[in-house]
């Protein structure tokens, strides 16, 4: 990659943001399989996690096509420090492991899913007019599925906050606070952000975040929540390779079989 132009680097970085975000987000969703509040939800949310893994695969494939590396290798064989996902997406679902004593928090799942899906929708809208055509095409396809994902998580968000159930409301509020602490990482475009915007690959971070606030504000108002958002990046910027132990552990699981023989055909 030594001779890459700045444009090549910006395209590669943006694709990695998108791919790595969906890859780890899908994993956190898949960990819930069999543990969701009811069976209908298990069917719905495992379908969403599956779609999301499909989106990650599309982006890794685009990276493969421009010679960055094999899609499976990119997904399974990059250490945490090379990953570009936002830190909020790697945060564990709760204490425990998905196979043993998973003390998962559905409120955090709903809030993170709703916030992320809304942010993803806004990014995709922006990518429709991306100067990088392969990405503009893919964005249309992904957005069709996202419509249902967003509807689903918005419904949960509104139902739980509007339930009048004391524990539900307080858990949801705590989850909102926890998610916003690091949610700026989702809008971050990393160290090549300026180039991405100049090249017309995607809109800038501030614009994306502003549109997100505009989209969620009416929903917040409908359940009586204040719309003064303090969106932070408390744990750092995952786009620049800063990550937590949560991601390292997740990657160990995600690549366990792959890593047992990288040369083998599976």
């Amino acid at each position, binding site marked *: 990659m030594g001779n890459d132009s700045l444009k090549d680097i910006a395209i590669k970085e943006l694709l990695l943001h998108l791919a790595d975000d969906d890859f780890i987000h899908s994993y956190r969703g898949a960990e819930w399989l069999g*543990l969701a509040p009811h069976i209908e939800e298990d069917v719905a949310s495992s379908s969403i996690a599956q779609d999301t*893994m499909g989106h990650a695969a599309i982006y890794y494939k685009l990276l493969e096509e421009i010679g960055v590396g094999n899609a499976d290798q990119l*997904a399974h064989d990059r250490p945490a420090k090379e990953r570009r996902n936002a830190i909020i997406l790697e945060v564990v679902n709760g204490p425990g492991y998905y196979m043993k004593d*998973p003390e998962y928090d559905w409120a955090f799942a709903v809030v993170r899913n709703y916030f992320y899906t809304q942010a993803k929708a806004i990014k995709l809208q922006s990518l429709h007019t991306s100067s990088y055509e392969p990405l503009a095409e893919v964005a249309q396809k992904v957005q069709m599925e996202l419509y249902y994902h967003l509807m689903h998580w918005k419904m949960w968000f509104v139902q739980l906050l509007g339930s*009048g159930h004391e524990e539900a409301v307080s858990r949801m509020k705590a989850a909102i606070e926890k998610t916003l602490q690091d949610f700026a990482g989702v809008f971050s475009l990393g160290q090549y952000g300026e180039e991405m915007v100049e090249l017309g690959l995607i809109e800038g971070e501030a614009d994306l975040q502003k549109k997100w606030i505009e989209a969620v504000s009416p929903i917040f108002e409908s359940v009586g929540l204040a719309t003064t958002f303090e969106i932070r990046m408390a744990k750092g910027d995952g786009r620049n390779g800063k990550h937590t132990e949560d991601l390292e552990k997740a990657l160990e699981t995600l690549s*366990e079989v792959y890593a047992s023989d990288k040369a083998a055909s*599976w």
Partner: protein
Amino acid sequence: MNVLLNDMAEQEKLNQFIARIEAGEKIEADDWMPEDYRGTLIKLISMHGISEIMGALPEKEWVPKAPTLNRKLGIMAKVQDEMGHGQLLLRVAEDLLKPYNKKRDDLMQDLFKGDLKFHNVFHMEAKTWGDAGLIGWLVDGAAIISQTNMLGASYGPYARALLRICAEEVFHAQHGEAIIMALAEGTEEQRKLVQDSINYWWESLLLFFGPPSKKEVGSSKQDVTIKYRIRTSTNEELRQAFFSKYVKRILSLGYTIPDETLRFDKESETWIYQQPDWGKLKVYARNEGPLSQERLSLRRISYENNKWVREALAPKVI
């Protein structure tokens, strides 16, 4: 006198019912049905439904670990299907439970108490990626054999649910077979994964079809399900069909089956095989299998952790 009249009326209803199912008619949820027909269906369908749900757990373990993006997508789709089957079947069971005023929640409580059983195979450990492949290939393969046997079931809602389930199970078996083929054509270690899986699962696969008769475990539902035209073949006929379909395939991949006595007897046209330890079926039914308690514990934890969600969503009493 009234009692006698009632008895006669009941007998008449029963005669009509038997005439309907013998004419190949379907019984629907709101139709009159004898109590032991209803009871048999509830046992069968709720066990089938909850087995789909408990069956998602051993495979779920391998969802994130699947070694490529395509395998991840494949196994995610499969496990999601299984959950969907569970949902479909529990709905069929819930309709049958209405006269008893029982609901989904009661089925979950029955599961936790150990009154509602799940299939023997889902008490086992899925230790390797080879097991994940073998579950799709042979466990789902066995399920297809046992479920297509009930496609003509006299109870309409179950027959219709099975039609959809069997169609999807065919994809699952192909998904499993594709994993196994890749391993079988792979490195020595990959090939060994498959042999180890065959060795570990073989007995469970034989147990899966149930005992040949009442004498092995003291009871068997097969006579009553055949009488009521819910199924056509016996447990043993299904097991024989499984041998006929899979023994050759397993051997042709260069693998062995952990039963030296296994052979096809041309004269009687049956497979002769080492009887599995039928007592294990009772052990699993008591939830004392290798991972019975761990799997139940996962469901219990999620049930407890999500209690507040159920409460928040419950209709408000005004």
